[in-house]
């Protein structure tokens, strides 16, 4: 091997490192999810006054913080209980602002193996998650590749996020977030979908698996959240977010719903801070027009749902966005 070849080889490696560094930085700055999540982080740190309710979950969590006063919606896209635990731990240990109640999203899809193994946006989550501890708990060394991704190659396998970030900049343009709540789902309506059942089935199989309804690692971290709240004396209320009828039908083909919630209640009831479950999953079964897609409420649906939640929590709405709140169906 000649000296020239060694130098060339090293130069090529250096080129790869430089390009990787640029792509990594560019992705972190460009990713719309990073921007959203970091804005929420900043808003949480800047929150002033009493925080009566902190709501946590994933993109299904659409509790409007304009309507539910003294609240912060910290739910983020594709978040699972594992990520929620680490974020909550960080909040409660590092930030002076403490919530009085935790509203924990508890949908059917919150507990399965698919969500448990769905670790997206690691370049954001790396600031909270202890990947080494997680790898030990899950007994899965592959978790460490997520750490590597988050630290050095954030763009790897994340072409969908790049695509979404471009789409977002073209279509959505503004990024309005108030106490974590983001009213943005107004550019599509599930009622206009010609094949609602098949779209719902596609979504259900994306989120759920026949394998097991309660993933062991989710069960561990669900308990960790409850333990943490017990230590900090924060009341926990679980909420099932409204879903479209079609989505629920498809979900219940995959998951034994009663068995799942029996197991969840059994764990939660061990902790005195647990206040109970508020079940709104069928609130809008007859109203596909309140949905953006099978499993996400649109802006109007989110407003109506939050108004109902506020009423059931015995609170007074901070703002009323629709007069139809009282007319909705369902029996939560």
């Amino acid at each position: 091997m000649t000296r020239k070849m060694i130098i060339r080889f090293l130069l090529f490696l250096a080129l790869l490192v430089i390009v990787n560094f640029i792509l990594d930085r560019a992705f972190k700055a460009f990713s719309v999810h990073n921007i959203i999540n970091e804005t929420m982080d900043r808003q949480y740190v800047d929150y002033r006054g009493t925080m009566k309710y902190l709501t946590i979950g994933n993109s299904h969590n659409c509790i409007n913080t304009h309507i539910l006063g003294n609240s912060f919606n910290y739910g983020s896209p594709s978040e699972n209980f594992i990520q929620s635990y680490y974020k909550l731990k960080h909040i409660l240990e590092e930030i002076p602002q403490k919530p009085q109640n935790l509203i924990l999203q508890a949908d059917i899809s919150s507990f399965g193996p698919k969500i448990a193994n769905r670790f997206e946006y690691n370049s954001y989550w790396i600031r909270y998650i202890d990947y080494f501890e997680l790898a030990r708990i899950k007994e899965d060394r592959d978790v460490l590749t997520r750490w590597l991704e988050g630290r050095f190659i954030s763009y790897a396998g994340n072409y969908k996020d790049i695509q979404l970030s471009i789409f977002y900049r073209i279509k959505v343009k503004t990024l309005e977030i108030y106490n974590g709540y983001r009213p943005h789902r107004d550019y599509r309506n599930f009622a206009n979908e010609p094949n609602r059942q098949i779209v719902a089935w596609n979504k259900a199989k994306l989120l759920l698996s026949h394998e097991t309804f309660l993933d062991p690692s989710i069960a561990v971290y669900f308990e960790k959240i409850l333990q943490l709240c017990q230590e900090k004396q924060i009341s926990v209320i679980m909420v099932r977010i409204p879903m479209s009828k079609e989505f629920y039908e498809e979900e219940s083909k995959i998951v034994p719903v009663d068995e799942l919630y029996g197991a969840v209640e059994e764990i939660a009831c061990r902790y005195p801070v647990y206040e109970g479950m508020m079940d709104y999953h069928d609130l809008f079964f007859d109203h596909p027009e309140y949905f953006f897609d099978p499993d996400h409420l649109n802006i109007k649906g989110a407003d109506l749902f939050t108004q109902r939640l506020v009423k059931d929590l015995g609170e007074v709405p901070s703002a009323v966005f629709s007069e139809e709140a009282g007319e909705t169906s369902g029996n939560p």
Partner: protein
Amino acid sequence: MLFNSIEYLVFLPAVVAIYFIIPVKWRWLFLLFASYFFYMCNRIEYGILILFTTMVDYFVALQIERSSSHRKKKAYLVISLVANLGMLAGFKYLNFFSESIGLLLHSFNIQGNLPVFSILLPVGISFFIFKSLSYTIDVYRGIRAPEKHFGHYALYVSFFPQLIAGPIDRSSGLLPQLHHPREFSASVLISGLKLMLWGFFKKVIIADRLGLYVDEIYAHPETYTGLSVILATVLFAFQLYGDFSGYTDIARGSARILGYDLMINFKRPMVAKSLRDFWNRWHISLTTWFRDYVLYSLPYIKNKKVSFTWLYANLIITYLLMGLWHGASWNFVIFGFLNGVFLIAETISEKPRRRFLDVTGISPSRFLKNLTGNIITLSLIIFTLIFFRADNLKESRLIISNSFNFSNLHLSVFQILRDNELLFGILALVVMLVAEHLHEKHDLVRIIASRHIIIRWSIYAGFIFFILIFWAQQKQEFIYFQF
């Protein structure tokens, strides 16, 4: 340890660096240690199995050479066959045999529960046993002399790039190379890295992405019909090709970096013009193994004449065994059987087909002939792959019957067109097939290598980052690891 895991991306550079740093005389020992470490990462006990096979075949081969009588030689060969095939049967086929006997007894109304054993199939057992077995058979046949150096032989059996899923290299290919430790060569290193990169493209961009669609359909065969099922079955053939040939490229690339050449396992099988052509291009190391050690060992002379009946029967037996090699289930038996039958049908119909063309005066162009041959070949292979992919016979039947149900055609089309991952996978597949075609015609690697350094490096770096950005997030194991 998977090739597409982070552990391997640390393991390989570490092995390569140490291998070329240490003195030449210790290199075989280091590679042997690395290979056992690689294998025992899956499960420590597995090391004992591979050591057992190695020791048996090493000593048997020496005894075969030392024995003067043919009878003794044969007895030693039988020891090797019993030890190796016994181990394979014990770990891989015991439950299959037990269940099959149980079913047979049940059909005669004989009740009784045969035991079901809880045995974990050691990764790659079929590969290293076949490799080691080919060596003793070669020594018995006098094709090669036995290896005197136990360490070199142990390394031949356990060489990590090909340990888990081949290629099933013959002793005449790899063993002599192990006697001559390689000097470090930048051009060989780069060539190996390029091959690995191409393998990763096939695995993580194509196979894993197509696998998402195929797995979904085959996991719920009762839900899908018509076009969705047909597309999944067709794509499975390409997924399997991308997955296994991708694995082979990574294996061959890894070995090449260390200076060793492993045999070619795939020669663009998807362009095969006949079934015979297909099996000459697909998993070559396995098909040639069965040809050399099974097919050619079976008798086909009767009354001093070649008996075609015997020849065809031998072909069926060989393909049945080849199907069974893939896995302990009736599905694989049917997969092998169908391939054998189709191959015989192709051979028998060759003359009548030619005569038909002569009589009718039809003289299709070469292109049309090749295209027709390719379509028929792939259709037959894809049909047999239903049995390969489905979990059991019931599921295979359901897949076949649902393939003819087009009642939800519009929904299937709607679903397919909305699946961006699938469409991207198909696009990448087309790119791969075109690139392979161009490479065969024009040697793309050489063309790129002859370009200016800026263009060359841009292509290489671009390809690396393309793979990184677009790899399928859901990592999947290599399909052939289960065999």
